[in-house]
C-alpha cells in the first residue's frame, strides 16, 4: 500500500465513520493482519472503542477476520474496498438508471448499512418511498421485493457468506469466531419470503408521540418476538458487477466516439451476450458467432446481415485490435479482447481533449502537442529523437523540450540499443518509448494523491467557515419553526436579515467551492476506475 493510498483511505474513513474507526482502520491498513490485543496496545484506544470500531468495519466489509490455527482471531483491513467508498454515488446512480428509484434506494440502504437482510431492506425502502409519495399513498412491499429480486438476478446484490450450521454437541464450545462460507450457486438465491405490507409514513407532528406509537406498533406486530423468516441471510452490494457495468458502458461510448452509433450498438450487444458467460475479471470474452450477434441485436435495429458483417470486419480490422476474428464458423467468430487495454488506450488516444483527466495528466499539463508525441510513441512503440520530430511535425527544439519534460516525469523512457558489444555510448541507439503499464501506475498514484488533496482542501474550507455555517443553520431552523407557527412576512424578513450580505456572499462562495471540489472528486474517481481496471487486467493474463 502506497502512502498515497493509505492517506486517502484514512481520510475516507474519517469522513464517513469518525476518528476512532479511522484510527483503527488506518492502523490495520498500515501494519497488516493483527489480533485484537495488538490493536488495543498500538493504537492506545480503549478496548471497548476498538471493539466497537471493529464491529462497524466488519459490518461494512472493510475488515475481515480469520480464525488462526492456534485459536486466536486476526483482523485484516481491505484497503481497496475502503477506496470504493469514493464510488458509492456512482453505484447508487447506476442503480437508479437501471431500476428506478426503488433500485436506487435499495442499493443506497445496502451501502449505508453494509449488510442487511432482505426483509429489513424491503421494509426500510418501502418506508422511505412512502415518505416521498403524496398523502394517502403508500408503497407496497411487493413492489420493492420484486425490484430486489431483479437486482439479485442480475447479480448486482449478492448474499454474504453464512455462518455454517452448527451441528456441535453442547460439550464442544463454539469456536471463538465463526468461519463464514458461501456456496457459488447460493450467492444470488433469494429466499422465499412472504413479505406483506405497505410502507409506513412517519407523521411529521409530535416526534415523541410517534416514537411511542412506533414502539407499541412493533410490540403488537410481534416482530421482536420471533426472528424474521430470513434471519441470518444477509445481502451486500456486489461491487464487481457494478464495475463490469461501468466497463461495458465505457467501452460502448468509446466505440461510439471512435466509430459511430451503430457499431457501438453492436458492441453493446456483444457485451451483453457475454455478461453471463464471462466472469468480470476475464481479459477477453468467449467467441461469439456473427449469427448469434445478429439474432441478439435489439429489436428496433434493422440492419441487414451483410451490413452487420461489414461492421464486424471493420471492428476487427481496427488498429487498436480490440475485436479479434477467430474463425469462420457461424459466419465468423468474434471475440472482444483486451477490454481494459482498449479502454485505456482509447482514453489516451482520443483527439478530443480528455478534460476529465485531472490536471496532472498529459495533455493539460504539457499541452496538446506533448499529447501528440505521446500518442505517436504509443503507436510506433520506439522512436529515435529525430524520428519523433519528423513524425510529430514539431520543430526540433520544442520536441526536445517536451520529450525531456516527459522523461523527467517518467511518462516516456529511454531504451538503449547497443550496436557494439561494448555498449559504447557513441555507437548506441537511444530510443524513446512509452511503457503504458508504468505510466498507468504512475498516473493512478497521482490520482490517489489528488483526491486526498481535494478532500483535505474541502475539509479545510468547511472548517474555516464553521462559525458562519452554524449561524446560517440556526437561522434556517428559526425560520422554519416560525413559518410553521405562522409568522408574518415582516418577522421572517427580520430574521433573514440576521445574515448580512457579505456573509451571504461568503456562504455562496463556500458552497460553490465545496461543490466544485466534490465534483472533481467524482471525476478523478472515474479516472481511478479506468486505470485500476486496466492495471488489474494486465495482472490477470492467463
Amino acid at each position, binding site marked *: 500500500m502506497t502512502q498515497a493510498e493509505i492517506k486517502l483511505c484514512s481520510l475516507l474513513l474519517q469522513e464517513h*465513520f469518525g476518528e476512532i474507526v479511522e484510527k483503527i482502520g488506518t492502523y490495520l491498513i498500515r501494519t497488516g493482519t493483527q489480533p485484537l490485543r495488538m490493536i488495543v496496545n498500538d493504537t492506545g484506544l480503549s478496548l471497548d*472503542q476498538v471493539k466497537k470500531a471493529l464491529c462497524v468495519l466488519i*459490518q461494512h466489509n472493510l475488515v475481515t477476520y480469520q480464525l488462526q490455527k492456534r485459536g486466536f482471531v486476526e483482523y485484516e483491513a481491505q484497503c481497496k474496498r475502503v477506496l470504493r467508498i469514493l464510488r458509492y*454515488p456512482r453505484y447508487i446512480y447506476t442503480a437508479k438508471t437501471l431500476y428506478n428509484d426503488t433500485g436506487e434506494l435499495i442499493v443506497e440502504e445496502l451501502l*449505508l448499512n453494509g449488510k442487511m437482510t432482505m426483509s429489513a431492506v424491503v421494509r426500510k425502502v418501502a418506508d422511505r418511498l412512502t415518505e416521498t409519495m403524496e398523502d394517502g399513498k403508500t408503497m407496497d412491499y411487493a413492489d420493492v421485493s420484486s425490484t430486489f429480486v431483479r437486482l439479485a438476478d442480475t447479480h448486482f446484490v449478492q448474499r454474504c457468506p453464512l455462518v455454517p450450521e452448527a451441528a456441535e454437541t453442547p460439550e464442544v464450545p463454539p469456536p471463538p469466531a465463526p468461519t463464514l462460507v458461501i456456496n457459488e450457486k447460493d450467492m444470488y438465491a433469494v429466499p422465499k419470503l412472504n413479505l406483506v405490507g405497505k410502507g409506513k409514513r412517519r407523521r411529521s407532528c409530535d416526534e415523541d408521540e410517534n416514537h411511542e406509537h*412506533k414502539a407499541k406498533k412493533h410490540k403488537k406486530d410481534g416482530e421482536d418476538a420471533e426472528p424474521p423468516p430470513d434471519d441470518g441471510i444477509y445481502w451486500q452490494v456486489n461491487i464487481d458487477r457494478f464495475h463490469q457495468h461501468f466497463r461495458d458502458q465505457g467501452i460502448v461510448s468509446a466505440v461510439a466516439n471512435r466509430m459511430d452509433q451503430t457499431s457501438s450498438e453492436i458492441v453493446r450487444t456483444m457485451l451483453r451476450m457475454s455478461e453471463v458467460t464471462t466472469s468480470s475479471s476475464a481479459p477477453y470474452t468467449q467467441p461469439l458467432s456473427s449469427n448469434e450477434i445478429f439474432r441478439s441485436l435489439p429489436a428496433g435495429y434493422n440492419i441487414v446481415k451483410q451490413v452487420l458483417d461489414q461492421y464486424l470486419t471493420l471492428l476487427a480490422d481496427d488498429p487498436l485490435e480490440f475485436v479479434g476474428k477467430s474463425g469462420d464458423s457461424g459466419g465468423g467468430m468474434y471475440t472482444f479482447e483486451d477490454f481494459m487495454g482498449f479502454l485505456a488506450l482509447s482514453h489516451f488516444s482520443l483527439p478530443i481533449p480528455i478534460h476529465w483527466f485531472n490536471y496532472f495528466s498529459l495533455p*493539460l499539463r504539457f499541452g496538446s502537442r506533448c499529447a501528440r508525441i505521446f500518442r505517436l510513441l504509443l503507436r510506433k512503440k520506439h522512436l529515435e529523437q529525430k524520428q519523433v520530430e519528423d513524425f510529430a511535425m514539431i520543430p526540433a527544439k520544442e520536441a526536445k523540450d517536451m520529450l525531456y519534460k516527459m522523461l523527467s516525469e517518467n511518462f516516456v523512457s529511454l531504451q538503449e540499443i547497443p550496436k557494439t558489444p561494448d555498449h559504447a555510448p557513441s555507437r548506441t541507439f537511444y530510443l524513446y518509448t512509452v511503457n503504458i503499464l508504468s505510466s498507468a501506475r504512475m498516473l493512478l498514484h497521482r490520482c490517489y494523491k489528488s483526491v486526498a488533496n481535494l478532500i483535505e482542501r474541502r475539509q479545510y474550507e468547511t472548517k474555516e467557515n464553521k462559525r458562519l455555517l452554524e449561524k446560517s443553520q440556526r437561522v434556517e431552523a428559526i425560520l422554519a419553526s416560525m413559518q410553521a407557527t405562522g409568522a408574518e412576512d415582516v418577522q421572517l424578513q427580520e430574521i433573514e436579515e440576521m445574515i448580512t450580505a457579505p456573509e451571504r456572499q461568503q456562504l455562496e462562495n463556500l458552497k460553490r467551492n465545496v*461543490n466544485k471540489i466534490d465534483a472533481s472528486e467524482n471525476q478523478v474517481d472515474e479516472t481511478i476506475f479506468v486505470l485500476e481496471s486496466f492495471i488489474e487486467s494486465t495482472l490477470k493474463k492467463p
Partner: protein
Amino acid sequence: MAGRGGRGRGRGQMTFNVEAVGIAKGDALPPPTLQPSPLFPPLESRPAPLPGGEELEYMLALKQELRGAMKNLPYFVKPGAPRRDIERYSDKYQVSSPIDSAIDWSPDWRRLPRELRIRVRRLRPGPPHAPPAAALLPKCKQRLALDKEEAIKKLESLEKKEEEVTSEEEEKEEEEEGKEEEEEEYDEEEHEEETDYIMSYFDNGEDFGADSDDNMDEAVY
C-alpha cells in the same frame, strides 16, 4: 560521478553521446537544480473546466447527502465526551453523550468473533410496572461503580429510543446470561424517583451568556 572527470573542460562530459539524444553542440542546458521543487509550482496551463450535466450534478448531490447521512448513522463512532475538569453535581442528572462502550445498533453477534462482543447487562426484571429498559454496558467488573452513574444518564436517552431493541435483547439475554443479572442489584426505579424534576427541563446555567445576544432562539425553560 564518472562524467565529472573533466573539471572545467567544456561543459560537462556525459557518459553517452549527447548528440544522439538531441543536445547539439553549443546548446544551452537548463541550470542545475539546487533545491527541491516548489510545493505549489505555478500552473503552466489552466485545467479545463469541469464537465457539467444532469448526471454529474445528481451524483454530486448524492455524494453530499451520503456524507451527511453517514454522520447520523450509528456507525459513525463519536468519541466519548471528555471528562470535565471537576465533577459537578449536575453531571449526575445530565443526559450525556453516548458512552464509549455502548453500541447503538445491534450487529448479528453470530457472525462476529466472540471477543468483539460487548456484553449487555440486564437489570433484574423488576416488578411489572417498572419500565423494562436495559442499558448496554460492558462486562468489566472494575467499571461497576462508574457504570451505575453512567447507566442512569444513559437510561433517559435510551429508554425512549431503544425500547424495541432492548425488548429483543431481553429475551435473548435472559436465557443466556441469567447469572449476570445477580451482579446488578440496584433498583433503577428508585433512582428515577429521586428527583421530581423532568431531566430535559433542567438547565444548569452553563449555556447562559455563551449565546450571542442577537440570538432569538426560543427560550429554554
